[in-house]
């Protein structure tokens, strides 16, 4: 294991035992389980060698929003990192030596565009106050080593739309979003990702309050030599909570694409309604796809559906398109785009679709002429 002693003392807004707990968690069984398809040691080494980012994550600050350094606050809000599950969050926070609070006290008239720079980004708490409505964008286009930890605290009755597009293929990235929702808070989450040298995205949504809800979609495309690993946890803790999670990944060449989707329904979370589906399309036999759904249910009165599949292009659909006059390569392309389009939703959809189309055509340039599903028609 890597020597963590060089990290020094954690900043004042971070619990004093953060590094110790992170160290213990790195060796723990939970980390081994959740880092089955990505190397935890390599990721850790990558983080420790990377430079810190000191700039604030939000450049354009609309009215009703404030951005403050955590170190400048007399009583900084607790950064609930769940280190036992996310030891890298503790390490990242320690490495960053700075943290930010973005306070949303009104409903801003334009989206908050979060910057995720190359390097170790400071942990950011995004607090959306009672009844406020905010649109958050994370157009993470940068490459290089990137790590970031975001904590979203959505107060009662707030509405948040979070759209993220991780498209740079020269990135080595680890990213965590932890979202906590109070009574009747709503989160719409659109996280799209292309494969990269290394990309690991953790998303953890906790539906704490009664009636809180989350709609999540995500599309992924992974090419030869690339790696994409996504871990999605949805916890239903409050009563009458609702979640829908739908992710599609397309993998071609000798690529590696992993997904783990976990629904956890706590005792007392009666009336919970959860649905998680992950579909993967393998374009080559060399593509390695791992997908695992997990369910933990501790309440009787719930509705929960859960599915994960790995498949190839449906020969019947291919024949159907060809029988209508479409050459095979165009028919294949249409089926790939359709599969992805089902999950490309949210404010960054056009951008993501175009980036994915460019990638598909890179693999099969002869198919470039055709654009069904392209942004021109959407």
């Amino acid at each position, binding site marked *: 294991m890597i020597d963590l002693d060089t990290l020094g003392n954690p900043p004042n807004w971070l619990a004093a035992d953060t590094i110790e707990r992170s160290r213990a968690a790195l060796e723990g069984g939970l980390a081994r389980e959740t880092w089955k398809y990505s190397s935890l040691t390599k990721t850790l080494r990558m983080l420790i060698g990377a430079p810190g980012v000191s700039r604030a994550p939000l450049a354009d600050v609309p009215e009703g929003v404030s951005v403050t350094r955590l170190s400048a606050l007399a009583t900084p809000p607790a950064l609930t990192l769940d280190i036992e599950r996310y030891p890298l969050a503790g390490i990242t926070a320690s490495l960053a030596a700075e943290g930010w609070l973005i306070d949303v006290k009104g409903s801003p008239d334009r989206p908050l565009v979060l910057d995720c720079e190359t390097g170790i980004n400071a942990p950011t708490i995004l607090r959306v106050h009672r009844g406020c409505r905010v649109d958050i964008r994370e157009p993470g286009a940068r490459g290089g080593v990137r790590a970031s930890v975001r904590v979203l605290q959505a107060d009662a009755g707030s509405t948040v739309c979070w759209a993220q597009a991780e498209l740079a293929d020269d990135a080595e990235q680890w990213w965590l979003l932890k979202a906590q929702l109070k009574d009747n808070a709503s989160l719409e989450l659109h996280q799209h990702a292309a494969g990269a040298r290394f990309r690991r995205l953790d998303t953890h949504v906790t539906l704490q309050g009664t009636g809180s809800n989350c709609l999540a979609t995500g599309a992924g495309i992974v090419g030869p030599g690339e790696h994409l690993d996504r871990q999605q946890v949805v916890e239903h803790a409050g009563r009458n909570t609702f979640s829908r999670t739908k992710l599609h990944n397309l993998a071609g060449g000798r690529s590696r694409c992993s997904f783990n989707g976990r629904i956890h329904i706590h005792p007392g979370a009666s009336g919970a309604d959860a649905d998680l589906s992950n579909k993967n399309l393998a374009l080559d036999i060399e593509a390695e796809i791992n997908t695992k759904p997990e369910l933990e249910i501790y309440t009787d009165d719930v509705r929960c559906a859960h599915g994960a599949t790995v498949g190839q292009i449906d020969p019947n659909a291919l024949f159907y398109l*060809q029988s*209508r*006059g479409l050459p095979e390569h165009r028919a294949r392309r249409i089926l790939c785009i*359709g599969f*992805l*389009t089902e999950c490309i939703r949210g404010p960054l959809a056009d951008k993501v679709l175009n980036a994915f189309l460019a990638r598909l055509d890179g693999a099969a340039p002869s198919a470039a002429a055709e654009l069904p*599903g392209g942004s021109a028609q959407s």
Partner: protein
Amino acid sequence: MRLLDIDDLHVRVDDKPILNGLSLSMNAGEVHAIMGPNGSGKSTLANVLAGHPGYEIIGGSIRFAGADLDGLAPEERAHAGVFMAFQHPVEIPGVTNMEFLKAANDSRLAARNLEPLSALEFMKKVRNLAQSLDLDSEFLKRGVNEGFSGGERKRNEILQLLLLEPKLAVLDETDSGLDIDALRTVADGVNRFHADGNGVLLITHYQRLLNHVVPDHVHVLADGRIVESGDGSLAHALEERGYAWLREDREDTPPARRSSGMRN
């Protein structure tokens, strides 16, 4: 003029023989109906005509508009003018019906070295076709056949037929699952297609559709070959008596006479 000539066709799937010496000829502008028991090979014939890669042709030939279809990919057959309305049209989520129709139509025009229609012209054309088939234009925005009812799928097949203007329509049980009004709407669509001088090969289990689309010839397909051919009255006889009598009949009829009987 000859449109289709199928001669002594033998087809198998996974080493299982399904068509066993099927012969059938059609002239341009004719309507032929094929009836026959479940599992007799009707859809197999339709799929083989459209070029489904899952079927192995081990003997015989198919000539379409004077050319051999052997070795042509499904899209090449489509460009040559073969169209099959599927017994079970396939769902393609994520691809809207409109995008699909546009891509199919553009491919057809490109194969003839013609320019694609403008988006506006195309939309107008498709909307008019949809309307003529009582298909709400909302169906054009949905995923291809996604969540369509049985009858809606069948109407969507006829929409494609009318849009793509082939020379031969092979309709595989397009009448199954249609309500009485929809049957008439679909039949009108098929008749419009036929009125342009095109051929129709109708696969059906029921005489009902044949009241609306009047066949020149009716054939019975059993055990992978045509065992009986006649005019429209044959369909009535089948409706009344089923298929069993044909089998008994066949025992004392030399097969040679049968196969020449269906030629025209």
